[in-house]
């Protein structure tokens, strides 16, 4: 009897082992495919975007002429031709350049940011008037692209946005150490701009920041309170079942629908300003609420009932049971859920399109009702721009966004590890 059983087992062993091997290899294959995709994606992104973190600058000896800056004896920050000062300084480096069209070609090496920079210097220190200052000003985007090798100088002149003469001037400046690539501070301190070399993500970052602030302030307390009520206090009947099904459904609703809701309710009905982080935050709160409620309920459910009974048995009220025992134990799960909800909100762009946060906004928002855009929307806007220089900025902005997402998820992991209590 037993010998026949062991014979049968032995006969089936080979087949079982083979199946297990196939299963293990297919699992390894799936993981490898995932990793390959991830590596390719990151390599491509970093390869394209890392160059945006540096920027080409030109060195000019600018003569801060009083005639130009203060024609009537008083400094005229509004109408004075600061651009002209930069152009004159550049002209001085190339005395051979003559004629209107040739000069205009030369001026195109400069970014409009050069004039702004000189204006900024004068605004900060009027003593500079009458002196000659050696400063580094941003080069035009096409110069930057050429220096970074994104424009191929060997192609025919008509096929590239930069002329042979301009290339010669750039090479001469390079030879004189008057051209340098430096860290691109503008990317982090400026708002959006039509000029790629002046465009930055500060506006989008601040917009996203204000939005997430509204979201966390609204969604965290409401979500946690709803979860506690539903788990600890609500009677279990048809109504609570209905609510549960609806919350689960809400978590799966496409985000653009929340944008439509925000447009209809917050902007059209409540007359809140469009393009404002306040409205964006409200919409994202609605979006993250179901995520937070579901995660918090799961965290509350995982608190062992024996702890509740122990507290109740000592005469703790239900409130005390919740706040002294359930909440501290459920907190890591609740926070993890919240942060995951927030990182979803940070990466969300579709609902923001519906409430006007897709506008071209140059100023960095200073509050909750200022017009603003958000990081993912900024990425979308730049990806849509035809200039070659915006392509690398798009990748750079994606890198920043991914960095923040990674940071948030890291915080979630660390918080969970630190707050977790063993029993």
């Amino acid at each position, binding site marked *: 009897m037993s010998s026949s059983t062991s014979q049968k087992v032995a006969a089936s062993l080979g087949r079982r082992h083979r199946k297990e091997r196939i299963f293990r290899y297919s699992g390894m294959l799936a993981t490898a495919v995932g990793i390959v995709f991830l590596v390719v994606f990151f390599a491509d992104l970093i390869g394209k975007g890392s160059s945006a973190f540096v920027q080409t600058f030109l060195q000019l000896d600018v003569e801060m002429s009083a005639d130009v800056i203060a024609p009537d004896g008083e400094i005229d920050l509004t109408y004075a031709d600061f651009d002209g000062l930069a152009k004159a300084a550049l002209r001085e480096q190339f005395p051979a350049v003559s004629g209107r069209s040739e000069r205009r070609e030369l001026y195109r090496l400069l970014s409009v940011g050069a004039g702004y920079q000189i204006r900024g210097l004068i605004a900060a220190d009027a003593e500079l008037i009458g002196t000659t200052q050696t400063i580094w000003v941003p080069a035009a985007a096409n110069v930057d692209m050429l220096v970074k090798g994104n424009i191929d100088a060997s192609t025919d002149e008509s096929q590239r946005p930069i002329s042979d003469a301009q290339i010669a001037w750039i090479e001469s400046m390079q030879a004189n150490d008057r051209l340098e690539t430096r860290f691109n501070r503008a990317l982090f301190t400026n708002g959006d701009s039509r000029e790629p070399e002046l465009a930055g993500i500060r506006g989008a970052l601040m917009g996203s920041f204000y939005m997430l602030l509204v979201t966390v302030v609204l969604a965290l307390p409401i979500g946690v309170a709803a979860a506690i009520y539903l788990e600890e206090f609500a*009677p*279990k009947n048809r109504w609570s079942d209905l609510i549960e099904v609806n919350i689960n459904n809400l978590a799966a609703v496409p985000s653009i629908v929340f944008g439509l809701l925000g447009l209809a309710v917050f902007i059209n009905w409540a007359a809140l300003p469009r393009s404002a982080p306040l409205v964006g935050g409200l919409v994202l709160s609605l979006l993250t609420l179901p995520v937070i409620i579901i995660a918090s309920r799961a965290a509350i459910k995982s608190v*062992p009932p*024996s*702890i509740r*009974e*122990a*507290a*109740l*048995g*000592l*005469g*703790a*009220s239900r409130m*005390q049971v919740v706040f*002294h*025992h359930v909440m501290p*134990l459920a907190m890591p799960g609740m926070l993890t859920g919240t942060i995951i909800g927030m990182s979803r909100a940070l990466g969300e762009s579709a609902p923001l399109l519906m409430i006007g946060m897709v506008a071209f906004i140059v100023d960095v928002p200073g509050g909750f009702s200022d017009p603003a855009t958000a990081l993912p929307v900024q990425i979308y806007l730049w990806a849509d721009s035809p200039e070659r220089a915006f392509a690398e900025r798009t990748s750079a902005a994606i890198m920043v966004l991914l960095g923040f997402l990674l940071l948030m998820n890291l915080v979630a992991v660390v918080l969970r590890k630190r707050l977790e*209590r*063993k*029993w």
Partner: protein
Amino acid sequence: MVTKMTQVKADVAEELTDLSQTFGNVRCEVPYVVAEDVNVYYDDNHAIKNVTLEIGKKEVIALIGPSGCGKSTFLRCLNRMNDSIESAKVTGRITLGGQDIYSKELDPVALRARVGMVFQKPNPFPKSIYDNVAYGPRIHGLAADRAELDDIVHTSLERAGLLKEVKDRMDQPGTGLSGGQQQRLCIARTIAVDPEVILMDEPCSALDPIATARIEDLMDELSEDYAIVIVTHSMQQAARVSKRVAYFHLGLLIEVDETNKIFTNPQHKLTEDYITGRIG
């Protein structure tokens, strides 16, 4: 073997016809907790049927009976722990020192400060040993200051026979103790509130024999000050610790009497079958 089982079942069925009254003596000399005609329903399930039982002050009474007989349910009626089960409905009257514990005026929170409970599985809070014991006094505001609270914590641990083992690590988690220590911590936590009655729901079922013996000694000492109602599956334990024994069967209180009477001369056939190990 099979025939014997059938025989027992037949006997039970026969006996079930005359279960209208409780055998022995449900009354006691100095009643403190009095349950009159208590019925408990879980939806359609009639879990406790017309139970009348008096529990004396400073008396240890053991509730015994086969699984599902309603002894734990009855125990939980005494501090209204059944309140948290939505489908549970309790009728009848239970008084504590003459006061109806199911009256609207009585807050279950106040009741549970007077009727403490120790559970089957040791369930210390995931907090320090000190905070475990101090929790009850804190929420009820029993200590005026830190010194008084320290005093309560020390006395309670001392009475639970745990102080010597933990006095150097009061700030360490209570969950780090061994099973028996955890259960004694739970007892210390319960007596820190200074209740009048302590309910114990199979307090030793998760413990080894040595830890069990310690808890049983502890019950002996505590019975000098508290009424103790203990649910147990161990007949030996009931015989060792209790003064009276109540035998439950299918929601009915079959027999109540002095412990030695129950174990030497049970009146009811079901009681006899249970204590001799024929049902269980």
